[in-house]
């Protein structure tokens, strides 16, 4: 295998970081992964109380009839991502992109197969930690702490975060509760908080689709920066343009199956042909 590794031809820039031997360093190995959701309460309205009892009494065999549905969201997906890569994930709605991303982050269990990672991949997003009744300022601290930054780190980056979000461009909004922000403003603040931390493996779920054109441009720049510092970036997006701008490799998921894995241009061409049908 080492011989093959040496024969690797450098093709596109930026080239993934490699060991002295020339072997690229893998950061995420996804090995034959299946992900299955169990959903409670999908039974029809009539008789669902008895169905629930049935489910408790008989467990397994009654699962289907009593309204527990198994949703096979990701089917036997394998790939390896390397240090320095930016990998786009595309596919129509409900094709399993976000699910796969969550599993890579270790936030969802896999039914079969294994996901091995270098360090702890993090999802870019702190929405859930923020509270709309608190001021933007307190949310910067709360979000930073939730991501595992120290108070000193947050203090140091506080100005950058606020400046980047552009919240204060139109007056002193950072000291107002977040519930008074427009949806675009809060999306910008959320992205700014989330992007303040450096990650080994960064997983981004449609974060670029928020804010106005100017902010989108800025966030794409920030993602490129993060990518330089981070080992590997995964980006889920429905915007082919932002995938093209940030990623050089694309995974295409369709109905939970990995349909294509290759250079951005090639995969996007096929994907565009597919979605036009």
């Amino acid at each position: 295998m080492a011989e093959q590794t040496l024969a690797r031809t450098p093709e596109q820039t930026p080239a993934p970081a490699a060991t002295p031997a020339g072997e690229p360093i893998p950061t995420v190995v996804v090995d034959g992964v299946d992900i299955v959701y169990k959903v409670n309460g999908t039974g029809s309205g009539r008789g669902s109380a008895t169905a629930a009892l049935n489910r408790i009494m008989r467990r397994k065999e009654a699962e289907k009839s009593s309204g527990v549905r198994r949703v096979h969201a990701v089917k036997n997906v394998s790939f390896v991502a390397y240090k320095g890569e930016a990998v786009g994930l595309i596919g129509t709605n409900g094709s399993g992109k976000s699910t796969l991303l969550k599993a890579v982050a270790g936030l969802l269990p896999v039914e079969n197969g294994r996901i091995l990672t270098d360090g702890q991949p993090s999802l870019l997003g702190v929405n859930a930690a923020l509270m709309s009744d608190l001021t933007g300022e307190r949310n910067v601290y709360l979000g930073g702490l939730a991501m595992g930054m120290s108070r000193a780190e947050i203090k140091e980056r506080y100005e950058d975060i606020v400046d980047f979000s552009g919240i204060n461009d139109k007056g002193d909004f950072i000291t107002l509760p977040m519930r008074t922000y427009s949806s675009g403003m809060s999306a910008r603040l959320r992205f700014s908080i989330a992007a303040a931390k450096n990650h080994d493996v960064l997983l981004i779920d449609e974060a670029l689709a928020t804010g106005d054109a100017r902010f989108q441009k800025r966030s794409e720049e920030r993602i490129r920066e993060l990518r330089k510092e981070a080992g590997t970036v995964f980006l889920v997006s429905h915007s082919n343009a932002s995938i093209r701008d940030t990623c050089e490799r694309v995974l295409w998921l369709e109905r939970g199956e990995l349909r294509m894995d290759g250079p951005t241009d090639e995969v996007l061409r096929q994907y565009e042909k597919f979605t036009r049908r």
Partner: protein
Amino acid sequence: MRSPGRRPGDRPPSFRHITTPLHRTKAADVSQVLHTPPRQAPTADDLDLAALAARHGLTVSGARPSLPEYVRQLWARRHFITAFATAKLTAQYSQAKLGQVWQVMTPLLNAAVYFFIFGVLIGTRDGVDDFVPFLVTGVFMWTFTQNSIMAGTRAVSGNIGLVRALHFPRAALPISFCLQQLQQLLFSMIALIGILLCFGVPVATSWVLAVPVLLLQSGFNVGVTMVMARLGANTPDIAQLMPFILRTWMYTSGVMWSIDATLRNSNMPEWAITAMRCQPGAVYIDLMRFALIDSFHADHLPPHVWAVAAGWAVVVGIGGFIYFWKAEETYGRG
């Protein structure tokens, strides 16, 4: 054309899917697509991937850390725990006109309701000296335990978004909710001191004992909250059941009446009365009364009361923590 990370001689495992034609299924088929395909036997690719991962020291994503490592991670997140608790507490009344005044008003109003029902209408005040301080201390202490437990049952299930988005030791959530309730209790204690002074309870050095009592009660509450958080995460139905269990527990804990004064002359066996007074619901309340109210003497307390109080705190506190940690990797899943 290949992606940059790939080696030429190595057939990328994922390319095998491209050869599979995508069926255009009819609408009726859509849910049937969700069936599990037969698991393939491990191919050369699988072995290859495992070897590759092993060579570079990759680890399983989202595995449960060891207990010491877990404690270390939790300690590293201590600022998040306190910030989250304070934020929750502040957000609670941020829309109200009176704002944070409600922190003190809410417990006072609670005490007023219980005084009206149990003190005036039913008359459990007979045989209890300083009934109002007795009642209010009981209500405040009980509220701490009750609200911690209720918050605990929803600590994981009610914050599923947070759990599914960020990595942190999940024990931070129940601990944070407990801390929020403790902060709430400290506000109530300000009101309590006012009530004590109004009803002529003298300031005494024994008030200092309130600190160890609160610490021990917090230890116990954190433990119960963690147990409830794990149960509530697996079975959200628990949250529906808890109000009934808690109400039963409250009435047997002597929150609004004195177990000692009421049952002393009943025909209940002695051991049953001692058991009622030693259960954690009652023990911390009575200790706090002993600390704060001068007419509540040591003979109102069960034997070895400090040992009992410390025992509950240590056993339940540590036991609950370990119980919660055992299921760490399962929270927010499925």
